[in-house]
């Protein structure tokens, strides 16, 4: 079993989102997810997934996509 690096990043972003649907509002969830990725992911990982989110993003769930939009400027 192997996977591409991007597949793995997508799975990770979606998983963070799935575990953080419970914040006060959708905005708060998106903020939390964005901050989590910002704080814990390496620059190269952020750049890669931001690039994917911009170009396609179809495999990302809604919260993850919105969170990555927040990071788009810094990690393009």
């Amino acid at each position, binding site marked *: 079993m192997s996977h591409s690096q991007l597949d793995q990043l997508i799975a990770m972003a979606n998983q*963070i989102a799935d575990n953080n649907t419970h914040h006060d509002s959708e905005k708060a969830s998106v903020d939390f997810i964005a901050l989590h990725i910002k704080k814990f992911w*390496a620059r*190269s990982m952020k750049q890669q997934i931001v690039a994917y989110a911009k170009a396609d993003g179809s495999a990302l769930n809604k919260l993850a996509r919105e969170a990555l939009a927040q990071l788009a400027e810094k990690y393009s």
Partner: protein
Amino acid sequence: MLQHFDPKQFINKKIDPDKDYGTPISKNSGTSEQLITLHIDGVEIAVPPGTSVLRAAALADINIPKLCASDNLEAFGSCRLCAVQIEGRRGYPASCTTPVDAGMQVTTQNEKIGKLRRNIMELYISDHPLDCLTCPANGDCELQDMAGAVGLREVRYGFDGHNHLESEKDTSNPYFSFDPSKCIVCSRCVRACEEVQGTFALTIDGRGFDSKIAAGQDDAFIDSDCVSCGACVQACPTSTLMEKNVIEMGQPEHSIVTTCAYCGVGCSFKADMKGDKVVRMVPYKGGAANQGHSCVKGRFAFGYATHKDRIKEPMIRDSIDEPWRAVSWDDAMSFAAKRLKEVQAEYGRESIGGITSSRCTNEETYLVQKLIRAGFGNNNTDTCARVCHSPTGYGLKTTLGESAGTQTFDSVKYADTILVIGANPTDAHPVFGSMMRRRLREGAKLIVADPRKIDLLNTPHLKDAIHLPLRPGTNVALVNSLAYTIMSEGLEDKAFITSRCDDKAFIKWQAFITEERNSPEAMESVTGVAATDVRKAARMYAEAGNGAIFYGLGVTEHSQGSTMVMGIANLALATGNIGREGVGVNPLRGQNNVQGSCDMGSFPHELPGYQHVADDEARGRFEAAWGVKLDDEPGLRIPNMFDAALAGSFKALYVQGEDIAQSDPNTHHVEAALKSLDCLIVQDIFLNETAKFAHVLLPGSTFLEKNGTFTNAERRINRVRKVMPPLAGKEDWEVTVALSNALGYEMSYSHPSEIMDEIASLTPTFSGVSYARLEELGSIQWPCNEQHPDGMPVMHVEDFPIGKGNLAITEYVATEERATRRFPLLLTTGRILSQYNVGAQTRRTENQTWHDEDVLELHPHDAQERGVREGDWLGISSRAGHTVLRAVISERMQPGVVYTTFHHPGSGANVITTDSSDWATNCPEYKVTAVQVEKVTQPSVWQKNFADFNEKQQGHLRSGRRNNETAKQ
């Protein structure tokens, strides 16, 4: 000058851990202000009530002869040697069983007492071989000492009568022998097995003169329940129970106190030495973590340090298909540095990284992450805590404000209910397991949440216990239903919540947790645990008085590991079980220095002391001290490094004392990643699985060969002291210094104490730590700074580092790894007592006697369904891979769940585990893998390839060594 006599001087005197005071410290010590004053041989002494006359005398350095008494055992009063006379009392009471009384006048020596003692000794010696000169205990025999002390000069009875002198020796245990001909039946071993270890493997068989010590039902030691902890050997006053090493080597001539390098308990040991050879390791009574106890690993399994497989010289090679070439340290360093620089020149600054070791010292770990951040110029540093306790760091920091356990081990003595979740202390943290068992025998209640029926549930004299056998992967569902019960039944600690917890967070949490879907009844179908048991357990914990939670990798190694850690902290906060003795949230750390490696900034996002790399103020301090600009973005974590390696952007890795090829999940993936590297530098004591993929092999040093510190699971910083020179000439920190200098980032330290001084200057929680303070205090539990100059045993007493406790929402999200028609069983993994982690150390000792292969445990029902019998070869398949193990059928398992360990590389347990991981930290989900199991007749393809590859690499190592030997001639 005349000095004022203070009778209290004796109790204020520092206890000497090398002296045996005869009976344990009185339970009233420290709690009772009132002291009892008495006279012993005319000396006025004041001691706490409950102290024995024997101990009171010993405190005043009046040493009454004794044989059956020892200060780690309750008084027994069988040998009568410690008889004294007390004014106004009849006869000769045993001073060990006689508590002090106010105004007591005790006489310990006079003609009558002397005669009585000589008579007792005479009887003992009449049934004891007179081979003192050739006896292995010669020089360390209490019986011999007492015969001398009482002045025994003759044995009038002769030696021809009925005796035990021809008794047969039991040498079945690999580490110690049992020679009943030397036994005086003082029962110290039996009591040590019960009171200290809690196993109850030994007993006294027969009555009167026929009494003898027996293991189990008069079995050989190896066939009995004995777990080889060594407590009986240590307790034995003669050579009856004796280390085989002492029998072979003779008595040690000096000894050095150091810290065990196995599990996170961090036991203190005296390394008993003969020159630079370790004769034996004896648990040190002055060690605050273990208080004189040990397990089979720390006590006996140290032979790996001098094993023939040790790597003794640096080696290099251009490709992994080539034999190794032994070279000088300088050549190895320039080779490694050149390669690293070439990779960075071609693939960029972020294309290299390193892994710090949770087995090495704090100082060594600190240096590796410093080399990576300052020398490599990126934050691609991680440690094996990634794959074990990273969720603890995240979860506890979020809820309590600090990434560490809240208590001392000793605190369990005050616990009323002990809740153990996903931990197996009697196997994985044995010395603490024994402390827990002692408390359970005293009547504390036990709740175990674990898919397996762990041994703690079989504690002798266990009273109230509940087992919550949940399905693997449903921890959060269970912890939520426990919290639901607490809140819905009004069992919470309202005063604590009001004063100590964040209001807003609590109100939100309360609304969430009391939703019906979190009730035990609603969650029953998810967890598989009866709702009534969950409710009972919740009450038992919340209403305990002192409820203490202990957890292990069964909590963290899940897709919701971090959520579960927060769920546990929620329980403690809601019930006010935090901030005092007997309570708390206690992660049981796997490796000796997992806590330390996390503290020392091994994680890619955190500088030492959990200071985020994006924190300009903190980073600025490190930049100033290290003289370089540091990256403000986190680096890659271990699993991310593997993914990046396969993608071609990560090309070189420096691994210190860590075997990622064996210990990390999804072996196929890891091996492919390692093979794709242009430069892999492995620093280890053996050619471990990872080293087989390496280009540079740097010899590591064992804990016996270096100075430094380890930090255990209770945040206790303990000194590691060098007892022998490093085999290859360098301690591990010196290797990192050399590599750094070869790379052009200058490091210069002459002793690890200087590294600790640098750590203290940059880490606010360590600012008061120094080697001088460690010498003075023995050990220090961080935080240790201006506010807490002696450290902090119990945390969060007044407030939390984040001010108020933060109850976190813990929504249950099922793992994607679930049983299917194709993979209908759930595999969970764990450890056993005799082996440690990847087994690199313990497999090279006699501990192999107990566990020389990993097996697959399954429930009789699952076995029957597949026609499996005990000992059959079983093929285990998951979506990640396939391996073959032998079957063990066990009722410890629940139907549908199978279990194995990963102590042997050829078992390939991690060929099956997958890349699922914790959402917050990427800690792998080792504890849940969907598998199918079927009978097979041969090893798996991976195992065959493994065997071939191993043979080839061992050949490459042999030729490297051979070449070197030829070159030297």
